[in-house]
């Protein structure tokens, strides 16, 4: 409950080394809230009220174990014996969400003419989840509540693409489902843009919507088929066939947006 400040104990210049040690010891035993010595910094600070008697012993024993035994008796914050609060990983890293990587991958798809394939080598699912939520948000703004529908369709279409690609590629096809879902999710970005744009298209302009949808679907298809073919082996001679499968997937999503 008290925050730990890195305040070194005060050493009086008079009295020499022994006097300083005496002062330190007196300080140690007199004030139970004293900051424990740095080598046992693995203990959780707000448990230091319990350390008054055990501090001396825990300072001498191996740091993490002593801290565990002492803190397991009282309710501990976090896992017993885990690194202290400052040493814990940031939440986003622990969850595996890397915003800069997501932004890089998203930006690589924003350019419809040249897609940077190397950033997509590590597949992750947090970017697609973010894009899925954005699509659901824009659909919600248009008055359609389709959270479950879009999630279900993403899952089904990534399984579809996975099966089609691996069957076409034959023995040496190595697209795995995680990468496939990641690519299908990231290439949903043009559909998200379409849903945002179609919020502003006036109600009666039918053909405009269809032409717009066509353009964005083609952009999506191009991105997805290029990425899939370049990231997994065995797809080079089946480019057109895989592109048609991607085209079907994204037309399906665009149907949700325009109708």
């Amino acid at each position, binding site marked *: 409950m008290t925050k730990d400040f890195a305040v070194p104990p005060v050493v009086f210049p008079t009295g020499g080394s022994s006097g300083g040690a005496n002062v330190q010891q007196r300080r140690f035993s007199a004030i139970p809230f004293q900051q424990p010595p740095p080598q046992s910094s693995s203990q959780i600070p707000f448990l230091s009220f319990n350390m008054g008697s055990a501090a001396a012993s825990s300072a001498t024993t191996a740091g*993490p*174990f002593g801290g*565990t*035994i002492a803190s*397991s008796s009282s309710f501990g914050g*976090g*896992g*017993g*014996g*885990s*690194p202290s609060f400052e040493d*814990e*990983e940031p939440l986003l*890293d*622990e969850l*595996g969400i890397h915003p800069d990587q997501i932004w890089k991958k998203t930006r690589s798809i924003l350019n419809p003419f040249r897609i940077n394939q190397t950033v997509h080598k590590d597949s992750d699912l947090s970017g697609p989840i973010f894009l899925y939520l954005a699509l659901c948000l824009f659909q919600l703004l248009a008055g359609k509540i*389709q959270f479950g*529908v879009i999630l279900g369709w993403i899952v089904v279409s990534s399984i*579809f693409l*996975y*099966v*089609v690609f*691996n*069957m*076409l*590629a*034959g*023995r*040496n*096809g*190595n*697209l*795995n*489902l*995680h990468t496939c879902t990641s690519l299908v999710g990231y290439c949903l970005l043009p559909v998200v843009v379409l849903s945002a744009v179609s919020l502003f298209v006036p109600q009666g302009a039918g053909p405009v919507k269809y032409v717009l949808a066509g353009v964005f679907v083609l952009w999506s298809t191009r991105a997805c088929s290029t990425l899939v073919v370049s990231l997994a082996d*065995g797809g080079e*001679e*089946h480019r*057109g*066939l895989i592109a*048609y*499968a991607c085209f*079907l997937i994204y*037309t*399906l999503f665009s*149907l*949700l947006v*325009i*109708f």
Partner: protein
Amino acid sequence: MYNNMGPQPGMPMHQGIPQPGMPMHPAIPQPSPSEYVQSNISRYFSDPQYYFQVNDQYVRNKLKIVLFPFLHRGHWTRISEPVGGRLSYKPPIYDINAPDLYIPLMAFGTYVVLAGLSLGLYGKFSPEALNWLFVKGMVGWFLQVMLLKISLLSLGSGEAPLLDIVAYAGYTFTGLCLAVLGKIIWGYSYYVLIPWTCLCTGVFLVKTMKRVLFAEARSYDSSRHHYLLIFVALAQFPLLIWLGNISVNWLF
């Protein structure tokens, strides 16, 4: 299957409290994903990999055959080659008459998408309606498979591989897509395209099944064969009219 089994990085390791620890598997060679897909599917069907050996040129030519079967000048028999002592058919890349599963799958998907589009143009689109269209298409495919399978069985031979029959049945969706596309572009063209599609599908199936029956049937009973083939061709009409009638009420 994936390469990320095992303890995730960043999870705090529990010390002090005795824990069994994450069971570390010895390095088992993981099958590649395509082998995983194929090994699971081939438990129930005959080698599906055969049906996906296609390329662009095959797809284009096969579509021409399915949509305009009377323009096909060549023969309709599949080329067989001796493989390992048994006679097996050449894969689709080398033989235009071999069935494949890519076209039926894509045609089915196109049918669902186009049907959704046509529903939307009449203002009746909803995701549930699209799900019902998917189910309707599946039922139609199943009925077609049943038709072909029963006609094979009633002639005393059911040994044609199941996936062959599924592939032949799936080719009807290509003509159906054409009909639905015509309906979207100009409403009245539907009434021309549907009979055309039924006729073409009928001719295609008759010519194909004739070869299959010839290859598989134990006894060659000419009149029964012909009646059955005519029945298959005529049954296309109600089936395709039912599938082509796209409405929210999926039963008719």
